[in-house]
């Protein structure tokens, strides 16, 4: 039996634009995934507790405010502290190329720039989360 892939889509940081997050949420839904949408201005603590309670496979972070180098690794760190290093974290939004190696070294599985087609993100999740029982 195939299980549904569950994705928490969250916007950490203080910027007030969630268009990107909404676009990715819809694309994932249209790809048959269950998306838990948490909205704007989420703290890493809120995001992580949400991922735990929702039994998420993936946390998708979207950010425009430039605080990604702090907020993304913090989410990964908190997941680990809570025994949930199996939950994959990836990011998107406005993130300079040169920050990507640092983020990956901190456990961010992938970083998708603004122009990334949603199909690429969908495919990435599908290949990295295998759900069978």
């Amino acid at each position, binding site marked *: *039996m195939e*299980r*549904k892939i*569950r994705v928490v889509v969250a916007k950490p940081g203080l910027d007030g634009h969630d268009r990107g997050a909404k676009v990715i*949420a*819809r694309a*994932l*839904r*249209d*790809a*048959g*995934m*269950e*998306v*838990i*949408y*948490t*909205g704007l201005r*989420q*703290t890493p*603590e*809120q995001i992580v*507790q*949400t991922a*735990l*309670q*929702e*039994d998420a496979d993936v946390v998708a972070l979207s950010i425009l405010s430039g605080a990604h180098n702090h907020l993304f690794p913090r989410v990964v760190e908190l997941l680990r502290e*809570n*025994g*949930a290093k199996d939950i994959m974290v990836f990011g998107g939004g406005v993130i300079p190329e040169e920050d990507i190696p640092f983020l990956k070294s901190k456990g961010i599985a992938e970083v998708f720039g603004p122009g990334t087609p949603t199909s690429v993100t969908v495919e990435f999740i599908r290949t990295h989360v295998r759900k069978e*029982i």
Partner: protein
Amino acid sequence: MSASLGDRCVAGDVRAIARLISLLEDGDVSAFHALPAFLERAGKAHVIGITGPPGAGKSTLTDKLISRFRNKDLKVGVIAVDPSSPFSGGAILGDRLRMQNHATDKGVFIRSLASRGRLGGLSRATNFGVKVLEAAGYDIVVVETVGVGQSEIDIVRIADTVVLISVPGLGDEIQVIKAGIMEIGDIFVVNKADREGADRVLREIRTMLEIQAMLRRGSSLAPTLSKGIGTDLHHGLGAITGQGSLPGLEAVEAGMEIPPVLKTIAETGEGVDLLAQTILERFDAVAKNGSLAIRRFESVKYQLKDMVSSHAMDFFSGESGESRLDAFAREVNEKKIDIYAASRALFSALIKGETR
């Protein structure tokens, strides 16, 4: 592995709780081995159903109710159900968006479920989710579902208290009168009371409830109504309605009891104190007068029937189930056996538990 998963849930392990809900939702057989660990806490939680049309403010109201219950040091679990897309099978679950203030509160556990288009299966999945949260020590479990007509979830069989939400401006007559819906409400709420028309909706609901109460009273005149779900459950409840929720005057004069009807503005929290109080007081009252026990007993019977028939359906699914059906379908088509006799033969095969 699942036995320890059950113990971990009872110990309040968030990951274990979350995973077990998923496994039960998927109907994973191994997950059901965890259930015996829950028996000790069975029945300890007060299950509150929040039901109403999309956009009525159910999630906003749930958020505010969580705060009120937390102020009383009650631990609160939430199961929030949203529809799946019929096209992709995916879902965007946005209920908890309005509850994120409680995300980091260790005394609150919020879980979103997608309807996944399973006939009857959603009620089962939801009910298991409730059981897990109850076992994990949550004193109150709120179940948010889209109700009014299109719901396949039998909230009245899951919840001890059903709160029905209406709002002004939705074409009130239609939403209020929807067959069967009024019957399941234990407490009625007109949310968005900041909007025009709230008082009219309130009056309409009261009128409907009074008519219902009258019909119930002369129950010999309305046997189908009086046998309807939940109709026996309002007995002795009129007395606990708080201020602002006084039952209709005519009903009072006639010695009838109707459920409380309250106004709220979920967005600002106005009216929510009284709602929380009404919910808790009603629960105490039905626990004391025995109607809670009766309702729960009836619900268990209902759920047993439902689960047994789902086991029976399993018997006829899969390869062996199909071939069993094929064999008899062929005989029916070849006029060797009539369809009733065929169904009886299949049924006795089921009872004998013939190997699959």
